[in-house]
């Protein structure tokens, strides 16, 4: 059978990523910091180059050919993103700089004008700072109260605790889909269903899910969903907000400026229809078009296939990590097939500080993240000052994991000999 001999997905795609083919300190690069940002395939780099060499002009405001091409490219990217998350309408996709800006958009345009003193916002202790600080602003300005879902014993979303926090006072639930530290996959569909019973709105932070698994906003039934392009093969500076049409319609504009207007007078203005109402100023045109190219690239491979392959890698990663003395991983363990969690592992190694680990791994060509991964409250909750994190993408291989594990063992041995 051909299936048994078929090469893993990574071998077919690695040629698409020029950056992977280099040496760091004389060793082949093993890039395991994908949860921070992904690398970019040639198709995305070419889209940027092609745009600037052939089509560059401002969008929506010229009748000349280049402007028309730029507009078509930019709006075409919107169609691609809408299809990628299965949004019912292209008007429901707003381009932003990144997920943080998308969350701030909802915080300022919706929450600031809607929430009353005593209203409650439910978050979790595992949120990235980007899904925490904007709601702290909202709470400070409106008098709304922040509540936090705790973790279960397996360091996952505690659904029972979540249910106990819900009440008629709950106006918003804002929760991460996949934790960038724990790697747990939160039951967002069930969270939305439960929250909606109380009339609360739900925002999903999909930064760590959009790059790795199929997303269907209609099935999840979330009110808003945000993601950053740079974690899903697109350039930095582009992300998106999905929002339900009626909800986006009811929200006042966020930033004011060009592009978001209909009629402007000296003392007042009327605003453009969706989605342009939320896109003030000249947008990141090239980046949006490149995001469209990234979506095309990922879709051509197939998000199901990427997810399945990453599950295989996850099973292998955790199996190998278990062989290294003193390693403690965070979040749920993968199931036998590698499923049930994301393809990343945050860990500590006894008394060896994550920064020291990361420096030693870097000398072996292995790029991992060390620190608090923008989840300081979660680290406090876990009793870890900082952790190291290896995070995978579909271009990573078992061999990458082998190099990482060998270097990790060496680092643990090196410090172990000191600590005796």
């Amino acid at each position, binding site marked *: 059978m051909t299936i048994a001999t078929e090469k893993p997905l990574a071998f077919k795609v690695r040629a698409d990523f020029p950056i992977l083919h280099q040496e760091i300190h*004389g*060793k082949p690069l093993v890039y395991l910091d994908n949860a921070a940002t992904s690398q970019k395939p040639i198709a995305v780099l070419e889209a940027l180059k092609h745009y600037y060499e052939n089509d560059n002009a401002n969008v929506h405001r010229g009748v000349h050919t280049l402007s028309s091409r730029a507009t078509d490219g930019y709006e075409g990217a919107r169609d691609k993103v809408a299809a990628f998350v299965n949004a019912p309408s292209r008007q429901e996709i707003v381009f932003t700089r990144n997920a943080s800006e998308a969350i701030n958009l909802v915080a300022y345009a919706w929450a600031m004008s809607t929430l009353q003193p005593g209203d409650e916002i439910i978050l979790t202790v595992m949120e990235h700072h980007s899904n925490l600080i904007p709601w702290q602003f909202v709470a400070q300005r409106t008098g709304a109260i922040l509540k936090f879902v705790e973790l279960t014993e397996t360091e996952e979303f505690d659904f029972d605790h979540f249910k106990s926090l819900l009440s008629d006072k709950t106006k918003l639930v804002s929760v991460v889909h996949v934790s960038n530290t724990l790697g747990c996959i939160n039951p967002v569909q069930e969270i939305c269903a439960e929250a909606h019973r109380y009339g609360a709105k739900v925002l999903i932070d999909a930064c760590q899910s959009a790059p790795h698994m199929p997303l269907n906003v209609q099935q999840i039934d979330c009110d808003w969903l945000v993601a950053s392009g740079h974690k899903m093969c697109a350039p930095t500076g582009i992300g998106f907000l999905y929002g339900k049409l009626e909800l986006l319609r009811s929200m006042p504009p966020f930033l004011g400026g060009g592009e978001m207007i209909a009629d402007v007078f000296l003392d007042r203005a009327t605003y453009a229809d969706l989605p342009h109402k939320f896109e003030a100023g000249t947008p990141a045109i090239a980046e949006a078009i490149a995001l469209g190219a990234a979506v095309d690239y990922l879709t051509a491979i197939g998000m199901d296939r990427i997810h399945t392959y990453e599950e295989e890698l996850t099973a292998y990663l955790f199996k190998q990590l278990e062989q290294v003395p003193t390693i403690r991983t965070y979040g749920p363990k993968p199931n036998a097939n590698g499923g049930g969690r994301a393809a990343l592992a945050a860990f500590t190694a006894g*008394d060896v*500080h*994550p*920064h*020291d680990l990361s*420096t*030693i791994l870097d*000398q*072996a060509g292995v790029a991992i993240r*060390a*620190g*608090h991964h923008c989840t*300081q409250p979660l*680290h406090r909750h876990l009793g870890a*000052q*900082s952790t190291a994190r290896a995070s995978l993408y579909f271009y990573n291989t078992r061999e990458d994991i082998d190099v990482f594990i060998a270097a990790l063992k*060496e680092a643990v*041995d*090196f*410090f172990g000999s*000191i*600590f005796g």
Partner: protein
Amino acid sequence: MTSSLGNLRDLYQQVILERYKKPRHRGKADPVSRYQKGHNPSCGDTIELTLRLNQAGDRIEEVKFEGEGCAIAMASADLMAEALTGRNVDEALQMVQRFQDMMKGGVEFPSEFRKLNVMQGVSQFPVRIKCATLTWHTLKAALEAASSEKLEEFVSNE
């Protein structure tokens, strides 16, 4: 450690690893004449320095530190505490500058402070320099503070 990782030996010299494992100046000065907290927000390393000064307030009699951080940060704090004991405040402030210059490469401490020179290897690892300098930034703030009042403000190393 394989030879390919050999230049890590410059960074993690035996003295550094020993000081990380068995610091000699962890704790709290008694009484506390100066207190200062330092923080490295990008990695979460924290340090709490306490100093005992002489009555005139111009001489350091004791330096202690508490905190959490990597081997470089903790060893740097321990070596600094040792080197500063018995020094005048003015001299200590000059040493802060000398240490920062050493991190840029080239400059060393004179032989009387040669233990501090084991930190020189850090200069080859630019992203780790802030680990080594956190304790010195914190010291500078502690010495420049007017009194023993506990400052809520962190010294940030960014």
